[in-house]
């Protein structure tokens, strides 16, 4: 730490403008990231510890958090095979129109989340195009947790595909041929030579899609039904608490969401690093 500040003060650097650019970067990152996050850490305790503890003993809040986390994890997990298949088709398949498909994959990122939410809700509502035949089969998608998962899969897919695609593109096609010539069956080629080196990328994709899923609001609330204790997500509960002027309750949820997300992302990062030991060069 001391050395870091000393380096900041020293001016005899080979890189021109080193100090200027470092200060700018730190200031920028501080204002845009560290300040809001630290506010989020401090604000909950301003109404007193007692108010905070009361807010933390809220069953509805835990139900909402559980809904958010479990649905985000399920959606990210479901996106693993789909994302892998899509990335595979984009990289290896010589399909016509793959450039259009390539552009379409990023669309959920650009679309206003409310638009995708309303679209999904319309499609999957009991009399919608997809909802009607599904409800005849006894599968109710909208207005329950399944709907949340569907919405989160929609917004999470681009993260998965974009995490896998570059790594898959870098894997030489000869790996599969080498495995075949050594006698590997198609499923052995798939699991041992394709999926295994992609594991770090799959974990990254999972982490990104999961993190996005926890925070997702707009696309979920239209399809979720938002019944407390059943299909209410944590971000929505924050809005509800704010409308009730229950700031302690709102910030309590935000704090838990923040800490939990941070822990999950740390875990994902550690797992990724462990899985990618082999890629470190000498």
């Amino acid at each position, binding site marked *: 730490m001391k050395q870091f500040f000393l380096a900041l003060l020293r001016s005899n650097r080979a890189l021109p403008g080193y100090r200027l650019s470092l200060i700018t970067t730190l200031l920028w990152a501080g204002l845009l990231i560290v300040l809001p996050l630290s506010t989020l850490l401090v604000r909950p305790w301003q109404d007193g510890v007692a108010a905070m503890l009361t807010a933390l003993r809220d069953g509805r809040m835990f139900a909402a958090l559980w809904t958010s986390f479990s649905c985000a994890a399920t959606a990210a997990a479901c996106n693993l095979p789909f994302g892998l298949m899509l990335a595979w088709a984009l990289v290896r398949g010589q399909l016509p129109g793959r450039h259009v498909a390539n552009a379409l994959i990023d669309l959920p990122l650009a679309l206003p989340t409310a638009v995708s939410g309303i679209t999904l809700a319309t499609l999957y509502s009991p009399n919608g195009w997809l909802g009607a035949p599904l409800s005849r089969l006894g599968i109710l998608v909208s207005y329950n947790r399944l709907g949340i998962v569907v919405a989160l899969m929609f917004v999470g897919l681009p993260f998965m595909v974009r995490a896998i695609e570059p790594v898959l593109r870098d894997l030489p096609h000869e790996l599969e041929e080498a495995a075949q010539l050594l*006698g590997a069956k198609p499923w052995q080629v798939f699991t041992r030579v394709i999926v295994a080196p992609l594991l770090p990328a799959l974990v990254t994709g999972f982490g990104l899609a999961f993190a996005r899923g926890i925070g997702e609001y707009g696309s979920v609330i239209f399809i979720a039904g938002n019944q407390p204790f059943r299909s209410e997500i944590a971000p929505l509960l924050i809005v509800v608490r704010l409308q009730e002027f229950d700031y302690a309750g709102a910030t309590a949820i935000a704090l838990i969401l923040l800490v939990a997300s941070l822990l999950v992302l740390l875990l994902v990062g550690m797992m990724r690093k462990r899985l990618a030991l082999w890629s470190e060069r000498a």
Partner: protein
Amino acid sequence: MSIEVSALERFAPGRRKPLLSKVSLDVPDSAFVALVGPSGAGKTTLLRAIAGLDPYQGGTVSLDGQVMKDVSARAGQVGFVFQNYALFPHMTAARNIAFGLDILPAARRPTRERINERVRELLELMQIPDLGGAYPARLSGGQRQRVALARALATGPRVLLLDEPFGALDPIVRRSIRSWLRDLHDRLGLTTILVTHDQEEALDVADRIVVMQDGQIVQDASPVALDRSPATEFVMEFLGEAVSFPGDVRSGRMVPHDPLVQPFAVPETVVDGSAVAMIRPYEIQLVPAQPGQEALLKAAPRGARNGYRHYVLNSAGHSIPFFLPQDGVDHALEGAALDVSRARLFRDGLACL
């Protein structure tokens, strides 16, 4: 294990020109064959077809008389080393080598101890006994190549196919690994086909050279025969530096157009007509001027390499390189004429015999 390729044909999708046009090749047991040719000649295409990695539209590939259908038929019998080595990046060198054994069904798979022992043996054989635990990203080019070779040999194949295996190595490693590979081939009794664009490498290591051009085999001969009687002008030029002298064959004598090049006798079987004499620079002789004769040819020294002193002389507007055995003298030479009687004759690109 012998390899017979007969009338192999392969077309690129959407193109009329074949990648391989009716290629036939017989490789007897324990032969070391080099496939050479310029890029795009179809060497790698032929090698991949032999391995069953690419589909072909006509012809057959047989191993020991058995016609091979697809890759799975050849699995474990054919070792293939890819140009980029294709090592599995997420496995250690040892697990890479063990791959072919690890994936066997439980009934045929050796025990863990047996597999580890086999890996140790192969690492020993490749002269990299300590690298079993290293990941490919940490290995040098030469080490990666040895791991790739060990992986290809782990299942005990009798056929070894190598696609430009020395391409990415530096010259010193290249030379040492070349002779080591030849030694390995002899010791394990393998049948090896090596693809290379470096003719010197091929001449050095193989006992048979197959020259390819435009998806066809142009000549298939031993290095000595290839050097003595190349089948086409292309083979002559591909195998090393060559100088050509156009001229006419008249009643058993080749008369070059260049008046400073001496006419020479040719075999009686060569009919009269225009021809090209091609010769290696070290086979050209400078004829010294007789007393009273004017020395019209002046050769400038260009340094010495590999026991030969290099000279360049200018005649009729173009420069002709020629080499003389190194004798310690480094001065300009003069002469009256060039003796190219050791040249090979070609007509319309083909050798005249």
